C-alpha cells in the first residue's frame, strides 16, 4: 500500500506540474514548520526522509544530537489551494525520526500516533471534532515594537447576518478553501463578540484531525490576509467580551459501534463513556497547561464568559468543563462528550493525546463519575459551584504548570523529552510575564500611589 501511495504522490506532482513540496511538521508549542523541497527530491524524501538540524526547532533536539529526519506521510499529500496556479505547491505532513529510523520523542505527531495506536490495541478508535473560535481584526498597527489595540472588523453578535457581510464572505471563502483540502465543515457562524467567528469541523480520527487543525489555522489566516484582515487564535484578545475556545467533541468507537452509547442508560451514556469522563475530570487540572498553554489562556477561563471554570460536567450547562450534548434523534453514533476548556492556541497533537490519555486512564482504572453539577439547567452558576466545593481549573499558567509538574500521567503521556522541555519553556514564559509591568498597573497605581 505504501509503495502505491508513494507512486500516487510522485505521479500527481508530475501531472499537476507541482513546483514546490512543503514538508510540514509541528514544534512542541504547536507552531507549523515547513521545509520546502523541489519535485526532484521528493522520491528520495518519501523513501529515506530529509534530514535537517533539529536544534533550530523549539523543543526538538539538544545540540549534541542535532540531526533528525522528516519522513513524509504520503496519505496527507494535498495541493495548496492558495498561491500561483501556474506554479502549484503541495504540502505533506511528516513524522520526525531519529537518524537510526526510530520515532523521535520530541515530535508531537509521533506522540499522538503512539496514543492512537495504544487505544487501537485496546480495540478502540478515537474520533475528534473541534469547534474552533477566532477573531477577525483590522491589520494590527505596530508602533515602537508594541502591537496596537486590536480593532474588530465588525460589530456583529451571535448568529448575526448583516447585509454588508464582510465576515460572512470571509468565512465562506475559508470554508471553500478547507473543503478543497478535504476538511469538511459542519457549521460556521458569527460568535458572540465583535469580529468573533466559529467554525465547527466534522469528526474524524484524532491524528487526521490534529493535522486538520494545523491546516485550519493556516488557511484561516491565509484567506484573511488575502482580504487585508488579521485572523487571530489568541485565547482572550479583548477584555469584557468572551474569548476564543476550542471545544473538542470526543468519542470512542469499537469497530462500528459507539463505545460511548448505551440505550439502557438515562443519558444514553455507557459505562465506558462515564469512566472516560471521570478520567477527564480527575486529570483535567494536570493537562490544562497543555490545553491552555499561554499566559493569556487563563484570562479566558473566568466566570461569566461561557468558558469553564469548575471541574464539573452537565448535559446542557455551558459553563461546565464537560458537556454531554443531546444527540439528534437519539442517534447512537452521535453520542459524545464535549471537553470545553481547551483553546485554539494549543498544540492539537499534544492536547488530543492528553485528553485521550486522561480518559483512557479512567477506563483502565474504572473511575467513578461524580454527580452531574446541573440539576436545574442554567440555574447553577460559578458562585454556587464554589459554595458546593467543586474544584476549579488552574487559575494561571503558573498554577497549571505546578499541577502538571506533579502529574505522572502527563509525564508518561508526553514522554520525558517533551514533558521536561515544555515545563522549562513555559516557566520561562511565566517569568517574563511576572516581571512585566502592565498598563493596568500604571493606570491604577502611578498617580494614586
Amino acid at each position, binding site marked *: *500500500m505504501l509503495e502505491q501511495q508513494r507512486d500516487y504522490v510522485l*505521479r500527481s506532482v508530475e*501531472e499537476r506540474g507541482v513546483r514546490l513540496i512543503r514538508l510540514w511538521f509541528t514544534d512542541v508549542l504547536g507552531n507549523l514548520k515547513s521545509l520546502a523541497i523541489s519535485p526532484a527530491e521528493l522520491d528520495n524524501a518519501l523513501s529515506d526522509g530529509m534530514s535537517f538540524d533539529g536544534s533550530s526547532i523549539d523543543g526538538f533536539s539538544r545540540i549534541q544530537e542535532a540531526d533528525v529526519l522528516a519522513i513524509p506521510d504520503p*496519505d*496527507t499529500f494535498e495541493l495548496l489551494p492558495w498561491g500561483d496556479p501556474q506554479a502549484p505547491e503541495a504540502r505533506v505532513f511528516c513524522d520526525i525520526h531519529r537518524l537510526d529510523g526510530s520515532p523521535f520523542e520530541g515530535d508531537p505527531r509521533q506522540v499522538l500516533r503512539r496514543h492512537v495506536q495504544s487505544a487501537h490495541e485496546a480495540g478502540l478508535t478515537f474520533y475528534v471534532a473541534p469547534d474552533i473560535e477566532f477573531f477577525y481584526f483590522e491589520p494590527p498597527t505596530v508602533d515602537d515594537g508594541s502591537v496596537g489595540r486590536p480593532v474588530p472588523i465588525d460589530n456583529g453578535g451571535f448568529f448575526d447576518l448583516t447585509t454588508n457581510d464582510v465576515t460572512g464572505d470571509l468565512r465562506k471563502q475559508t470554508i471553500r478553501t478547507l473543503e478543497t483540502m*478535504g476538511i469538511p*465543515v459542519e457549521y460556521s457562524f458569527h460568535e458572540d463578540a465583535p469580529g468573533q467567528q466559529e467554525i465547527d469541523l466534522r469528526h474524524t*480520527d484524532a491524528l487526521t484531525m490534529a493535522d486538520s487543525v494545523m491546516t485550519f489555522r493556516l488557511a484561516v489566516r491565509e484567506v484573511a490576509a488575502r482580504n487585508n484582515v488579521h485572523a487571530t487564535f489568541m485565547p482572550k484578545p479583548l477584555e469584557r467580551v468572551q474569548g476564543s475556545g476550542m471545544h473538542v467533541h470526543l468519542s470512542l468507537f469499537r469497530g*462500528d459501534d459507539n463505545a460511548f452509547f448505551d440505550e439502557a442508560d438515562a443519558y444514553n451514556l455507557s459505562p465506558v463513556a462515564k469512566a472516560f469522563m471521570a478520567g477527564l475530570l480527575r486529570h483535567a487540572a494536570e493537562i490544562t497547561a497543555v490545553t491552555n498553554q499561554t499566559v493569556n489562556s487563563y484570562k479566558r477561563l473566568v466566570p461569566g464568559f461561557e468558558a469553564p471554570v469548575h471541574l464539573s460536567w452537565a448535559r446542557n450547562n455551558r459553563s461546565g468543563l464537560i458537556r454531554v450534548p443531546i444527540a439528534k434523534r437519539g442517534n447512537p453514533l452521535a453520542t459524545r462528550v464535549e471537553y470545553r476548556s481547551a483553546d485554539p492556541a494549543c498544540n492539537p497533537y499534544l492536547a488530543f493525546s492528553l485528553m485521550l490519555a486522561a480518559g483512557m486512564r479512567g477506563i483502565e482504572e474504572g473511575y467513578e463519575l461524580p454527580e452531574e453539577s446541573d440539576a436545574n439547567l442554567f440555574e447553577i452558576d460559578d458562585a454556587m459551584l464554589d459554595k458546593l466545593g467543586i474544584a476549579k481549573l488552574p487559575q494561571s499558567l503558573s498554577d497549571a504548570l505546578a499541577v502538571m509538574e506533579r502529574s505522572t500521567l502527563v509525564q508518561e503521556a508526553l514522554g520525558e523529552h517533551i514533558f521536561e522541555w515544555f515545563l522549562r519553556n513555559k516557566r520561562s514564559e511565566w517569568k517574563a510575564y511576572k516581571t512585566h509591568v502592565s498598563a493596568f498597573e500604571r493606570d491604577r497605581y502611578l498617580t494614586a500611589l
Partner: protein
Amino acid sequence: MSRPADTVLVVADPVQPEVARSLDLGGYSWKAAAPGETDEAGGSWAGVIVDASVDPDSAWAALRAIRRRPDTLVPVMLLVGGGQLDDLEHRDELFDDFCLTPFHPAEFGARLRHLLVSEVDLQRADLVEYGELTLNLETYQAHIDGRPLDMTYMEYELLKFLAQNPGKVFTREILLSRVWGYEYYGGARTVDVHVRRLRAKLGEEHAGLIQTVRSVGYRFGQSRWDS
C-alpha cells in the same frame, strides 16, 4: 523511452520557449522538427503542434505534408499570430484546433489537453467517465467540470472504485475491504469519513454523486432503476 504514440511532435524552427515550457509542465514528452523535416521525423504521434507564426509558408507546407501521411487522423494544433487569422480561411482541413500566440499558458494547456484527450485517451480503456467526472487511471488524475480534482491516495481509490461501478449500492464493509483491504483497522466509519471528504472536494454541486443509501451504504451516481 516513451513510445512515439505518446509523444507530441512540435514543428517549429526554433521552438518558442513558452511552448517548450508548457509542454514540459504539462508532463508531455515531445520532440521538435523543423518544418522541412516532418517526413524524416517519421513515427506516429499523439499529436502535432505546428507553429506558423514565424515562417507561415513553410508551416503550411509542413501541414500539407503531415495530412498526406498515412496517419492523417493525428490531431494537429496550429499556432498563429493575431494578424494571421485571415490566413486560416480555406485551410480548415489542415488543423483541428488553433491557438493565438503569444498565448496564455493555461489556455494553451487546456486546448492541448482537450485535443489530445478527445483524440487519444478516449481510445484507451483506462479512462473512467461519469457525467462531468473523469478519472484517468494511468495518470491518477481526476477532473470535474474540467477542473482538476486533487485527492489523497485513499480518496482517489475510493472514488475510482465507486465510479467504476455506477448505480450499484455497496455496504461500508464491502467498500472497506475492497478499497482499504481487510488489514485496515479503522472500521467502517473510515468509509464515512472519506466519503465526507470526497463530497467536500467535489463541491456542493457534485456532492450528490455519492449518495447515502440509508442503513445500507453508498451508491455512486443514479440508481440503475431510475431512468
